[in-house]
């Protein structure tokens, strides 16, 4: 056994953490190694000389009294912070709860569009539109005017009707439009 290992085991032995099998081998090493024997003696003296000074008389009574006071203060602080229904706050909590209750009741009482109401709305719309549609269908001239109006409004919205539309396009956009038109008309040649 090496001295380093033996000294580690001496330390374990002092702590009562050395398995008995290892103790036998340690003792065998110590019989032949004076330096390790001295090391063990030194550690035993250190162990025996280790001790903490006892607290002076009356210390623990004062300690417990101080701790008791600090625990009481801690608990009082906790109650102030954590108890939600403390006397001063009961009215505020009650008022808040009443408001929430009133809000929920109001929401529940509000009329909502059920299936019957939606059906009624459709019927009402049909009642308004039906005479107009019938009048247009019975008058070809009126139908033609409406068609023309619709066509004119569609043309107004198309880019061709806006002379400034092409000027607002960039070169790339113009090239893309030209390519698309050529492709559509079959003039663009093979792609």
């Amino acid at each position, binding site marked *: 056994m090496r001295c380093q290992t033996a000294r580690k085991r001496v330390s*374990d032995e002092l702590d009562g953490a050395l398995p008995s099998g290892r103790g036998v081998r340690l003792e065998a090493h110590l019989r032949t190694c004076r330096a390790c024997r001295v090391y063990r003696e030194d550690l035993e003296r*250190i162990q025996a000389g280790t001790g903490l000074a006892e607290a002076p008389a009356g210390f623990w009574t004062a300690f417990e009294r101080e701790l008791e006071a600090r625990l009481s203060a801690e608990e009082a602080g906790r109650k102030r912070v954590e108890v939600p229904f403390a006397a001063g706050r009961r009215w505020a909590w009650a008022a808040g709860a009443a408001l929430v209750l009133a809000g929920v009741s109001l929401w529940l009482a509000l009329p909502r569009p059920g299936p019957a109401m939606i059906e009624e709305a459709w019927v009402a719309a049909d009642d308004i539109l039906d005479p107009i549609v019938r009048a247009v269908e019975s008058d070809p001239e009126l139908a033609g005017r409406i068609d023309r109006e619709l066509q004119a409004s569609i043309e107004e919205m198309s880019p061709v009707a806006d002379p400034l539309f092409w000027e607002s396009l960039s070169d790339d956009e113009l090239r893309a439009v030209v390519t698309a038109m050529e492709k559509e008309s079959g003039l663009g040649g093979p792609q």
Partner: protein
Amino acid sequence: MDERPEASLVADARRGGREAFAELVRRHERRVRGIALRLAGNAADADDLAQEVFLTAWKAVGSFRSGSSFYTWLYRIAVNTSLSFLKRKGRERNRAPFDENRNAAVPGSDAAPGPEDRSALNELTARIDEAIAALPAHFRASFALVVDQGLSHADAARVLGCSENTVSWRMHKARKLLQARIKPFLEEARR
């Protein structure tokens, strides 16, 4: 009168029982202060830390899992509170690095300032305390639990949140450092 089982006290404390908690304090206050004293290095800080440990325990006892050991939990709070304190104070940063070659003054030599009438045992204890105080904090924590409080490596490992092997190794290193530091004194005393 028979002592109440700790599990019953812990259960009461978890439900907010101050009397039960006070009994737990009485059972563990010496050990908690001992851990704090070994880590903080002076009585005034150790007293404050012990108070802080029990306050923290009181606030957190509701989340303590009844399946685990109360003292392991409490000592973990003690070690963590003390280590945090040392960090806050920057003592670990300012502490002179442990120098194995820097030996303690030999009694009777010019460098020994201690009073001449101090007994050899007291002198040894004082030297050992100084040497322990110069150990790195995690070594001191292991030393406090294993040597001062008599915990097994397994229990100390549970408190420190590390493996048994780590505790064993730290104890070996700590003892090696201590022995190296007070070796001249031990040799002088041996003569």
